[in-house]
């Protein structure tokens, strides 16, 4: 395994972490539009918290996909063709929720509710199916000698993958609530915290179930006992930190901790898979490995130069945007109708 192959394996993980950290709260806010708010002003208020950034956050996914294609074409090809219908659901979710932002702003008042719903449902579908995809992927999928995956319903949808999907939704929702608490004023801010306090209780149960299923359904503990255990513990610790912080109303800590949980989760998945990138349930001979599914050294080198040159610039202006929009979005009271 070359250093560049390892670098790009890590970079793919970083890109997915960035995606879940950032777009995770967008999904959460999207779901909250129909589940947390009491009136249209509150919906507008929380949508405004992500208005300037959600599109940029989604680019993390596009970059992750592009980087996967460029640095691991065989992984990309197997994963994307194998998860055909799952990815179709993800795309459908991304599409309806993406247009909802613009449409809900422009449609006549009576149709706005429709686009609020599509925003919420789209924001729920996407993390759910990402959870299903990544978890079934680490359980191992029927991949043949040519690297083609022909899976059946049960391979995609089973107890562990559904728990993974639900966990992803719950994590996104909590992350969104924490973001709302951090970025708003008024009643919605308190409500977001109250919801979070309650949901952290449920997340603990989910994490235990997740760890147990991981023990039985994957070879992670066999292959990488130490890192798997450490990262699982880290996820629990981060959850405790977030939970305590939400009690103490330390909004920044809560938000950072819930975001870091995603990073730990992605790290758990990637270290557990290492040195494989796709696990074959037919035979370990057919596993896709870092060593045999990457691009040529030349392409990896070009990509590395590009990333080194431009990633800092990108991070700089993204950081600047968050700075520009650093203030809280004010609560607008419902006015007496004339």
């Amino acid at each position, binding site marked *: 395994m070359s250093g560049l192959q390892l670098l790009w394996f890590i970079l793919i993980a970083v890109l997915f972490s960035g995606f879940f950290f950032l777009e995770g709260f967008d999904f959460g806010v999207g779901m909250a539009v129909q589940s947390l708010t009491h009136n249209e002003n509150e919906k507008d208020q929380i949508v405004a918290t992500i208005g300037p950034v959600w*599109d940029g956050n989604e680019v993390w996914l*596009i970059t992750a996909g592009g980087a996967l294609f460029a640095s691991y074409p065989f992984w*990309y090809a197997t994963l994307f063709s194998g998860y055909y219908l799952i990815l179709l659901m993800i795309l459908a979710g991304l599409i309806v929720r993406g*247009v909802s932002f*613009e449409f809900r702003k*422009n449609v006549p008042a009576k149709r706005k509710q429709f686009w609020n719903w599509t925003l919420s449902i789209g924001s729920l579908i996407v993390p759910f199916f990402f959870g299903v995809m990544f978890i079934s992927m680490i359980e191992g999928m029927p991949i043949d000698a040519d690297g083609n995956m022909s899976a059946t319903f049960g391979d995609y949808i089973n107890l562990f993958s559904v728990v993974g999907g639900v966990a992803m939704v719950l994590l996104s929702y909590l992350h969104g609530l924490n973001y709302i608490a951090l970025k708003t004023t008024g009643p919605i801010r308190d409500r977001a915290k109250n919801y979070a306090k309650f949901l952290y209780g449920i997340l603990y149960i989910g994490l235990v179930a997740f760890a147990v299923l991981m023990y039985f359904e994957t070879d992670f503990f066999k292959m990488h006992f130490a890192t798997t255990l450490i990262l699982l513990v880290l996820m629990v610790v981060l959850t405790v930190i977030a939970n305590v912080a939400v009690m103490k109303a330390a909004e920044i800590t809560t938000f950072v901790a819930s975001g870091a949980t995603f990073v730990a989760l992605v790290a758990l998945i990637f270290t557990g898979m290492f040195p494989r990138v796709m696990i074959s349930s037919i035979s370990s001979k057919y596993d896709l490995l870092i060593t045999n599914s990457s*691009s040529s050294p030349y392409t990896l080198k070009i990509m590395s130069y590009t990333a080194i040159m431009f990633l800092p610039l990108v991070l700089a202006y993204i950081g600047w945007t968050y700075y520009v929009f650093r203030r809280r979005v004010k609560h607008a009271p419902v006015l007496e109708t004339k």
Partner: protein
Amino acid sequence: MSIVALGRFQFAMTTIYHYFFVPFSIGTGLVVAIMETMYVITKKDEYLKMTKFWGNIFLLSFAVGVVTGIIQEFQFGMNWSAYSRFVGDIFGAPLAVEALLAFFMESTFLGLWIFTWKMVSPKLHVTFMWIVTLASSLSALWILAANSFMQHPTGYTIKNGHAVMTSFSALLKNPQLWYEFGHVIAAAIVTGGIIITGLSAFQLLKKKEGNPDFYKKSMHIGLLVALFGSIAVLTAGDLQMKALVKEQPMKFAATEGLYKNSGDPASWTLVAWANENGHKRVWGIEVPYVLSILAYDEPSGSVKGMNAINKQLVKEYGNRNYYPPVNTLFWSFRIMAGFGTLMLLVSLLGLFFTRKKNQLLYRQKWMLWILGLCTFTPFLANTTGWLVTELGRYPWTVYGLFTIKQSISPNVSVASLLISNTVYFLLFTGIGATMISLVVRELKKGPDYEEKLDEEEKRAAKIDPFDKEAFE
């Protein structure tokens, strides 16, 4: 139906749909940037109004463009995994670079542009829009670099049955890339100019238009942009044709419906119909000399016909059918070039008849109708242009290296493809209908709506979420 046919259908449907919105938003984005710049320079409120009004329409098209774009990146892996494996070492890089260099910039600065009206100076604000325009052009450059490799592979070698990159700069120095880039950007500029011209014309046709001056001014800017763009698109298209004769003679011959070698000098076919199975032209009207001029810039020289080229390709690449869908290519090309010429004429005459001395156009309804109907022509020209480029590459995905049949994902079922085609079709229909109704609504509201709303809002003491004072 075969998976190849369904996969091709999906590619056509999703890219054509996506490409309605790409030149739409690049083009109108540019016009909006120009309008805002005029505002910054002249400080006249009417330009600010224009920026906001057309900016809203731009944002609608941008939103649809973004969401339909994600499909494209996923599609290569989902439907064309064999292709992705074959060419990923080369093809993936420009896609990743596009995201890193262009998409981040585009989305971040667009977010800034939308939400900082009251927070930053007008100069900084207009800079955001220019950065967005620059970023969208950059994104076009990178995606066309990938497409150009498929049209005209450069900087690669074949290793273990896969194309492997040997030179990244060759990818960027590919002449095909620069023809395509010039042509596509120019086409986007025409598209933006014509959309704004056409929609303004429709507004001026309304009996009770409250603010005709607004639309007259907008139309003027639109016409200037369209004129510039159409001259550029014709020039670039002409260069592209001359390159095609050499690089992809089959595509060229098909767009001319030429089965037998032409005489010398070659005459150009104005209209014709081919019997594709019999490899024969059924009828046609020819104009002497013109094809030689189009192909070589001089009134002599013959052009090879498809029959001869087919024989040559069989010798070079093995026995299969190399005839592309001739009638589609022939007519697509004529629609594109015909509308291109029409748009050039319309923008010239439009400017002539709206000059200060004699503003005939505003009084002649039929002229306004022509301008209004022109709104649709750039969409047709863009679509048919891509049909020529992509169908004309038949039977290859990567010219000379990899065929369409080899490219499909072997593990994807007919059922999956039928489901995804249906899902996309329904989504596209719903989104398209909403999009059109919202543009119409925006036009009905007119440019003064926001002002009225602003006043109402002020009265209602509603707070702009990102207004300076709103933050504590």
